[in-house]
Every structure is written in C-alpha cells, then in structure tokens.
C-alpha cells in the first residue's frame, strides 16, 4: 500500500503517459495495403485461389485470351500477405505500409463488391465456354490439316 501511495504522489508531478493523443506513425513492416503492378503479372490466378477472405477477383474477357482484369477489395482483405508470398513473379504484388481509407455510405462498398463478384462468376463461365469453343476449332483445323496432308501424300504417290 505504501509503494502505490508514493508512486501516486510521484506521478502527480510528472508528465502523463497518454500524450500525444493521435498522429503516430505505423512502424516499418506494418501489414498494410496490397499494390498491384499490371506489367509484371502473368495472370496465373494463384492469388485468387489462395486468398482466405476472397478479396481478389479477376474479370475474364469475352474472347478467350489471357488478358484478365484485377479487382481488389480493401475492406474484405485481412492483410495476411499470402497472395504476395504465393505470386511466382517478383514485384507483381507488393505489401506496403499504408493503412486503408475508411469508406462512407456514399461510396456504397458492399453493393459495388457484390456486383463485381457476380460479374466475375459470369465472365468466368463465358470465358471457359469461349475457350472450349476455340480449342475445338483449333482441333478441327489440325485434323483437317492432317487429312489434307495425307491426301496430298497419296496424290503424290499416285
């Protein structure tokens, strides 16, 4: 009891420990926002498969090529850094020190993200159909080319 008594009297004349109230910087190595570089990405979609919260979605184009569009939700992300570790190309995804901006009601973050999720699902199905069609056509062409070559050879023999 005496120790706390003396400590209280000492603290009465020293500076409080709760100042400053706000304005401190996060330290180095803080788990912050994820930044994407489009030039280095090879579109393997490993980051989408490994994210525990489902915060990265890709929107697939119509024509079956490999030119995907990257969409990221900073309000679902848990900043674990798994996508950065899984990415096979160095520098395509980087984890920075910055903290995310808070969203207000006018931004409507939930509704816009639900739209993007639906768009990603539908565009993936269409892209797979388009890719299957492309592959079938390529296969037919290859078979026709083979047939054509055989007939050519037979003609030559004859």
């Amino acid at each position, binding site marked *: 009891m005496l120790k706390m008594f003396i400590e*209280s*009297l000492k*603290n*009465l004349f020293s500076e409080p420990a709760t100042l400053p109230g706000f304005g401190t910087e996060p330290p180095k190595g803080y788990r912050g926002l994820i930044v994407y570089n489009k030039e280095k990405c090879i579109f393997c979609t490993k980051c989408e498969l490994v994210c525990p919260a489902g915060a990265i979605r890709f929107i697939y184009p119509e024509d079956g090529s490999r030119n995907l569009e990257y969409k990221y939700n900073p309000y679902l992300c848990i900043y674990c850094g798994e996508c950065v570790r899984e990415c096979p190309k160095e520098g395509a995804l980087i984890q920075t020190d910055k903290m995310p901006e808070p969203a207000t009601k006018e931004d409507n973050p939930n509704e816009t993200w639900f739209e993007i999720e639906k768009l990603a699902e539908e565009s993936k199905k269409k892209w797979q159909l388009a890719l299957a069609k492309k592959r079938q056509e390529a296969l037919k062409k290859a078979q026709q080319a083979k047939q054509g070559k055989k007939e050519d050879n037979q003609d030559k023999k004859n």
Partner: protein
Amino acid sequence: MAWILKTIAFLSPIIGGFIYGFERIVRARMQNRQGPPLLQPFYDFVKLLQKRPIQVHSFHSMMGIAFFFATWFALSAFLCGPNILVGLFLHILAMAFFIIGGFSVLSPYSVMGSLREIVHLMAVEPLLILLAVGLFLVTGTWSVEEMFKYPGIPLVYLPLVFIAFVLAIPAILKKSPFDISEAHQEIIGGPEVDYSGFFYEAIYTAKWIEYVFVFAIVFLFTGANWWLGLALSLIVFIFVNALDNSTCRTTFHQMIKFAWFFLLPLAALNIFVLALWRYVL
C-alpha cells in the same frame, strides 16, 4: 462574518462543482493520465438536462429531488444556523430521503445499495457527533459562526479527533477503501441506478454539496486563522486522493469493524483526556 457564510451556503453547488472538477484532474494525474477539463461537472450538468428522463414512478423521482434540496438546506443550517448538531441531524434526514428512494424500487441492485448506505450512516454519524462535542469543549459554543471567530487553534487540543475524521472522510465521500454503497463493479451504482436525465442530475449535484460540507468541517479545526485552514484542507485533499488511489475496496463487515472498534475509541479517548484535563485538574 455572517454574510461570508451566507454566500458560501447560497453558492455551494457552484463551489462544490469546482472542487469536484479539480479533484478529477488530480486523480487522473496520479494515475499517470491526462484528466478532463476543469469545468467538466458543469458540462455534465448541461448534457444531462438534454436527455429524456425515464421514470419508474413519481415517488422515486420526488425522493431524488428531495435529496438535493435537503442537502442544500442542511448545509445552510450547518453554516448559518444556531447549533451545529441541528445541521448534522438535517444531514442524516437528507440521506434518509436518498435511502427511502432506493428502497421504493423493485430492482435488486437498488435495494442492496440502500442497505449498504444505511451501513455507511451507522459507521460515520457517531464520529461526527463526537466531533461536535469535542469542538464544544474547546471553543465553548455550539454555534458555527462563533466557532469561526475563535482566536486559538482547536487542532492542537483535538489531534486524535482530527486523525479519526480524516480517516472517515472516504466513507462520507464514497471513495476507496470505503466506497461500498456505490460499488460500480458489484452493484452498478447502488441506489442511484434507476435515476436518469434531470433526476440523476439532482443526485449528482447533491454529491458536490457534500464536498463543501466536508471541507467546512476541516476549516472548523483552525478557528479564525483561515490561512492555516486553507493549507490544512489542501493537505487533506491530496492525502484523501492518494489514499483513494492506493487501496482497494473492503467489505462492509470490515468497514464497520474499523469504524466502531478503532476510530470511535480513538476520538472518545481524546475527548475523555481533554475533559479530565479541563474540568478536573
């Protein structure tokens, strides 16, 4: 002299508010944090007036307002009246209003808090009456106005009574180690748990008036030398706050044992020796 006492009694809520605000800053600094601004009790007053009050029934709310006015009247009777004992008994009446208000509600926390408040009264009031008797022995009058004109220093004749009073201040002002009736971790506020809005403001202000009451009694111990009284009350203020910050809460069995078997014999011993020395030797 009389008009100083009358002004203090009339303005006692405002003076009590300043003392309470200053005490919050001192308590916060002792805990190594920055406290609220000095005028915080008055900001609370304005905020509580804007809230919508929810009443249990009208008798309960009337007891709250009666507690506030009775405390103000008791302080005025104590400071400007003819007899110190009348002021102390009116103080008991004001606490009785509070206790009855706590009993009139069905909430278990309120009832338990009122029971504990009665225990507080049982522990503290005998000591205050012994204090009045001691002051009569030294100054020769029962009237507070005459006591403030006494040229000597009653503290020299009543040291043990003063020590017993300072150790009983936590029980009057509801601070650790004796803040049993409003233990907010156990019974969430005791008898004041069902008041809200304007009626809670009445009880909150009545507590400020108790601060003026306690420090007026400290000033009585130094007679007419009020510079010494100011210094003494500053020392008592810092001591009571440091004691608040270095003890935990006790149970009511321990509080009653401490008050009846240690503080009361101490004060009685002092008065006994003083009476023997004055009237026999």
